[in-house]
């Protein structure tokens, strides 16, 4: 397989080309780099997160930006792949981003948060996996409740409202699902609830018939479903086909607008705990929901709210410090309490602790007539 010298040299030259580098941005704007799942398994969640953030950026820019500077928001797709996410976060840092916005899935966050940490760049993420804020990374901030905080609330709900003595747990085998499973099972057992079945499913799994049959034959009093959006909808359809009539309980994703839309009638009666919802009894959420619907022509799920409120959190903290200084921003944000009376864009009173975890009220909800209906409000884990 011999080649001429010229052929080989041509190849060599091609190798050394092919790398473009973003030029440094002028400091007239505040650069915020979105590193978000726009394709791959996280595309549904990522698109919502990005749209929410984009809407906040448009609003903030229309009112003059942050400290007089407009936000320059660019989004790099992660393909829901840790390696690509790392590259994208690195690119954002190299381009001098004031903050990294995203990603939403926990695996890609784990792979990239050290990069932001090394550079001292704040990273506002949508991940729920408990481990993210346990590793001493000082630049990460959540926009949703930590699983470790949400699951005890849910276990209480199983005990007091569902009154279940045994529960079948269905989870997706990625770090989000596994983290949720590892968090809920001890909480349930602590409350004397038996685990009747412990069922792992695959990310992007299409057919849930076998899992639905396992749940049904476990004879548990209720099933806890902890899957990503599209898989949740497929599972709901599969279990309804089995004629399952016991309570189907979920945490945030199961009751999301996208799941209800995809599952149709099969979502009817599903209930559980939600961190954020446009249907919550809160005029700010309702107003956000309306604006989002008008702009993107579909109903936002909790990820849209996370993107929107996260961007306002970024703005609020920057304005409180009075300058665009990352170190000052991080210092203020750890321990910051942001109330809607000071910053309506945050949508709900929130407290960010020293690890970057967020604490706030959350809700109990049920799907009725194709709508998520809020049936109760739960207080924050620690009152503030």
């Amino acid at each position, binding site marked *: 397989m011999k080649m001429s010298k010229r*052929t080989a040299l041509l*190849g*060599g030259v091609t*190798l050394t080309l*092919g*790398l473009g580098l973003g030029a440094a941005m002028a400091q007239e704007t505040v650069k915020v780099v979105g590193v978000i799942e726009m394709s791959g398994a996280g595309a549904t969640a990522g698109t919502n997160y990005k749209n929410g953030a984009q809407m906040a950026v448009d609003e903030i820019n229309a009112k003059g930006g942050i400290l007089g500077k407009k936000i320059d928001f660019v989004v790099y797709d992660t393909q829901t792949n*840790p390696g690509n996410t790392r590259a994208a976060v690195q690119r954002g840092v190299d381009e001098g981003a004031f903050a990294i916005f995203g990603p939403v899935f926990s695996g890609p966050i*784990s792979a990239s948060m050290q990069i932001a940490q090394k550079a001292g760049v704040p990273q506002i993420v949508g991940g729920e996996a408990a481990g993210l804020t346990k590793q001493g990374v000082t630049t990460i901030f959540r926009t949703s409740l930590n699983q470790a905080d949400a699951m005890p609330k849910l276990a209480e709900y199983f005990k007091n409202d569902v009154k279940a003595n045994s529960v079948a747990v269905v989870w997706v085998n990625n770090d989000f699902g596994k983290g949720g499973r590892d968090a809920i099972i001890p909480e349930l057992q602590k409350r004397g609830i038996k685990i009747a079945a412990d069922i792992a499913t695959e990310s992007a799994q299409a057919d849930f018939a076998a899992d639905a049959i396992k749940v049904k034959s476990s004879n548990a009093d209720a099933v806890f479903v902890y899957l990503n959006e599209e898989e949740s909808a497929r599972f709901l359809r599969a279990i309804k086909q089995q004629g399952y009539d016991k309570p189907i309980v979920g945490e945030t994703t199961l009751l999301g607008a996208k799941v209800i839309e995809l599952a149709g009638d099969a979502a009817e009666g599903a209930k559980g705990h939600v961190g954020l919802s446009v249907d919550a009894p809160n005029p700010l959420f309702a107003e956000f929901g309306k604006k989002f619907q008008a702009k993107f022509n579909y109903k936002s799920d909790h990820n849209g709210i996370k993107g929107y409120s996260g961007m306002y959190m970024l703005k609020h903290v920057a304005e409180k410090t009075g300058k665009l200084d990352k170190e000052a921003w991080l210092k203020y944000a750890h321990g910051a309490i942001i109330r809607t009376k000071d910053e309506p864009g945050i949508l709900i009173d929130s407290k960010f602790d020293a690890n970057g975890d967020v604490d706030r009220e959350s809700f109990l909800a049920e799907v009725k007539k194709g709508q998520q209906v809020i049936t109760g409000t739960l207080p924050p884990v620690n009152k503030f």
Partner: protein
Amino acid sequence: MTRHPVFSRIDANLATLLIGAVILWFAPAGLKSYGLYVISLWLVMSIAAMGLNLTLGYAGLKSLAQAAFLGIGAYTTALITAKGGIIGPGWSWPLAFVVSGAITFFAGVILGFPALRVKFHYLAFVTLSFATVMFLIFRNEQWLTGGVYGFSNIPRPSVMGSKLDNDLAFFRFVLVVTVLLSLAMWWMLRSPWGRAFTALRENPLRAASLGINLRAYTLLAFAIGSAYGGFAGALYAPLVEFIDPAPFAISASFVLLLTVVVGGQGYFLGPFLGAAFSYVLPEVLRATGGLYLLIYAALVLILLLITPQGIIGIVEKMRENRRQKAAQEQRNASKVMLEA
């Protein structure tokens, strides 16, 4: 004047490799971390593709498990080097590199046994199931691999007491390893082994009749190709500093297969071109915004329609056309002469 035997052995591939290495040593000095990360990734994946190129391009064995070997190398390296390393920070990486290569070599031998019995797409199925099993081990054996939570804080190697935390230094380290592995591959392909591998692909029956031990060479091709996957893994883990099962899933094996095919299977420089196409081009195409994956997919389709032999195939085709044309002209000229 007769040429010194050493010079006569230096061919175009080697010249390109060495010139390319010198350019790459100096060229990225101005690049920031992102650029260095992308070209480091390119080199690492080139090594993995080089291994697959040996099994597929030279020996003609269709393997769908190269990402699994990459994973074995990466997890082995993570386990040996993490938390200060099992034999101290200085020597843990070299140990990990050797062990990664050795484990994947023997895994390749074991996987190669069925390769003797089955061929073509049946062989692809055998490797596919191996890749699936490996993925499940990476994901489910949490006590060993960290499971879905992954393995974080994998350190960069140290050279002569100083840790390669600087991205440029690490890139140059990757470059040196890549050049060494490429030289070994170059030497091997020109040796009787390499000729035997090609003979296996072109005509196994004739190869056997010439006294080539088919069983031994099939196993060897598989094992060496797999070991290159392991070597690449030993660099991948410290490059990303975090691993979870996702980059070693079946789809990643398919991307590596695409890399070899797109670059030009059976060409020494094919894996480098292919890896640039598979791992660098999508990053460059980000400039086109949301459409970048569509554009990328269209490029793959068009490329393989135009030139099934890969990127190098285009150049080869052009040369072939020129040769044909020259031959035609010669024929025409000689005809005139005959008539005259």
